[in-house]
């Protein structure tokens, strides 16, 4: 069991100082546009991932005109209390503490307090470029397997090293083959590991996604998902050897797991070209719920679910299917935002779950 009991925000986005206490497992948050609903969910996400879901730099998270920020969360996890505190100091140094002890590496924290966010811009997962889908898979696997996360970090570093090497080799008109081979070997070792983990994971993940799609949409659309990777053909070492000439020419590594993608299809056509808005949203939710279910199975308890503006996205029937299912059939802590107090209250009433409503006031 994982429950966030309270959170204290200091200088985070629109909040200067603010405390929230969460007394029920289902928490509805309502308020007009710009009152800080998304920011509150992002703060919760931040405590799980040591970074924002939205902002690329911490500078964007600090309340304008001030310096430094702090997010403190009080949790109950497997019947024990835990305090997570993230502090960004005035000099932009970030600390992350658990029960008063600082993490040496933030990556050690990832996966211990799992959560899943569903936010308005997430359709990019379906219609955007392949980077979005790799990030999605990596976020799940990193929370399940610390070795995966470490290997991914190493892969990224080695890729940068190899690309820098290719650039310098071209500029200097000389290629140190010994060094290039070593970097390629190191990269291959990490790449093969990541490929195998992704492949294993996706075998289970695809049926789950399709099942959720059908639950949410309530129909029998023919959906397929394929894992596309150059490593399906041969090992990375061979791919790199074949690509060496081209790599040197364009000064970049052209093959590897950093090119992987997921291909979605609807009735044998490319999903993003074929699907309606509603179908896209259904697939998005299916993917996210499959993520949530996979994490739950691995952790042995339900991850926190953050649903931002979901009412704007699904029709009433689909919304109801989804909420009913997460609120009633599973013991997850769920945070849901909406601009309409009545719509939110009525829905939770109809589902018939105990819940808490939090109102965010206009400035």
């Amino acid at each position, binding site marked *: 069991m994982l429950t966030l009991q309270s959170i204290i925000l200091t200088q985070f986005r629109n909040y200067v100082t603010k405390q929230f206490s969460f007394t029920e497992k289902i928490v509805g948050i309502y308020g007009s546009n710009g009152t800080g609903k998304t920011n509150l969910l992002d703060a919760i996400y931040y405590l799980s991932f040591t970074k924002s879901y939205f902002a690329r730099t911490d500078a964007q998270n600090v309340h304008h005109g001030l310096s430094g920020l702090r997010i403190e969360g009080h949790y109950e996890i497997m019947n024990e209390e835990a305090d997570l505190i993230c502090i960004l100091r005035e000099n932009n140094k970030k600390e992350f503490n658990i029960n008063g002890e600082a993490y040496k*590496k933030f990556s050690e924290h990832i996966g211990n307090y799992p959560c899943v966010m569903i936010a308005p811009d997430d359709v990019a997962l379906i219609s955007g470029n392949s980077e979005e889908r790799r990030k999605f898979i990596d976020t799940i696997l990193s929370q399940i397997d610390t070795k995966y996360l470490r290997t991914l970090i190493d892969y990224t570093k080695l890729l940068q*090293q190899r690309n820098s*090497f290719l650039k310098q080799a071209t500029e200097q008109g000389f290629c*140190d083959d*010994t*060094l290039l081979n*070593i970097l390629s070997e*190191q990269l291959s070792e990490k790449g093969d590991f990541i490929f195998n983990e992704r492949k294993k994971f996706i075998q289970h993940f695809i049926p789950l996604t399709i099942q959720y799609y059908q639950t949410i949409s309530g129909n029998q659309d023919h959906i397929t998902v394929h894992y596309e990777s150059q490593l399906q053909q041969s090992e990375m070492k061979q791919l790199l050897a074949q690509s060496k000439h081209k790599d040197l020419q364009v000064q970049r590594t052209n093959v590897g797991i950093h090119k992987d993608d997921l291909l979605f299809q609807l009735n044998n056509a490319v999903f993003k070209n074929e699907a309606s808005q509603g179908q896209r949203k259904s697939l998005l939710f299916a993917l996210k719920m499959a993520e949530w279910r996979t994490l739950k199975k691995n952790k042995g308890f339900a991850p926190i679910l953050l649903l931002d503006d979901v009412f704007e996205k699904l029709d009433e029937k689909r919304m109801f299917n989804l909420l009913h299912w997460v609120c009633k059939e599973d013991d997850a802590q769920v945070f849901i935002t909406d601009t309409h107090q009545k719509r939110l209250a009525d829905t939770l009433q109809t589902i018939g779950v105990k819940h808490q409503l939090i109102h965010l006031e206009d400035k």
Partner: protein
Amino acid sequence: MQLPSTLLENAVAQFSKLPGIGKKTALRLVLHLLKQDVNEVKFFGETISKMRSEIKFCNRCHNISDGDICSTCSNSMRNQNLICVVENIRDVIAIENTQQFNGTYHVLGGIISPLDGIGPDQLNIETLIQRIQKEETQEIIFALNPNIQGDTTIYYIQKKIAPFHCKVTTIARGIAFGGELEYADEMTLARSLTNRLPVQQYVQ
């Protein structure tokens, strides 16, 4: 900071160039020196400038030295057929403090990292290869930080010295992943030097 004397200001400016020293600390140090005897401060200054101008680097191992060859390289009590390869001089000092190592060193001056513009040519790798060939070294121990760039450096050197019959080992990784050698406590470092391992042969 407004100071009443240009001389004072210059001295403060010099001190604050040092790592970890801010303007305030610099002022405190300068005011302290101001209270000392003139000759004592003169000696202080001379010691430092002498250190910089007269210090040498060993022609053989690139460690700091008073002469062309350092005291470790010229010490016949030490095993001259054993080389411990380290990144920098701080590592030499850390290992010497364990008093567990009786061979010689080779200071690379960094590790291979194209991302930081450091290739094999920027490091003392060529001299190491020549040294191993010429001296017919029996064993080299890599005592580099256990991270990716450390591995790249080990594999690279290993490949280059493959033709010579030199045993290659690495210190046991009792040290935390990505941890700095310099910060490892002496016990751990000593143990890892005694329990050294053959380098994995997966790079051919």
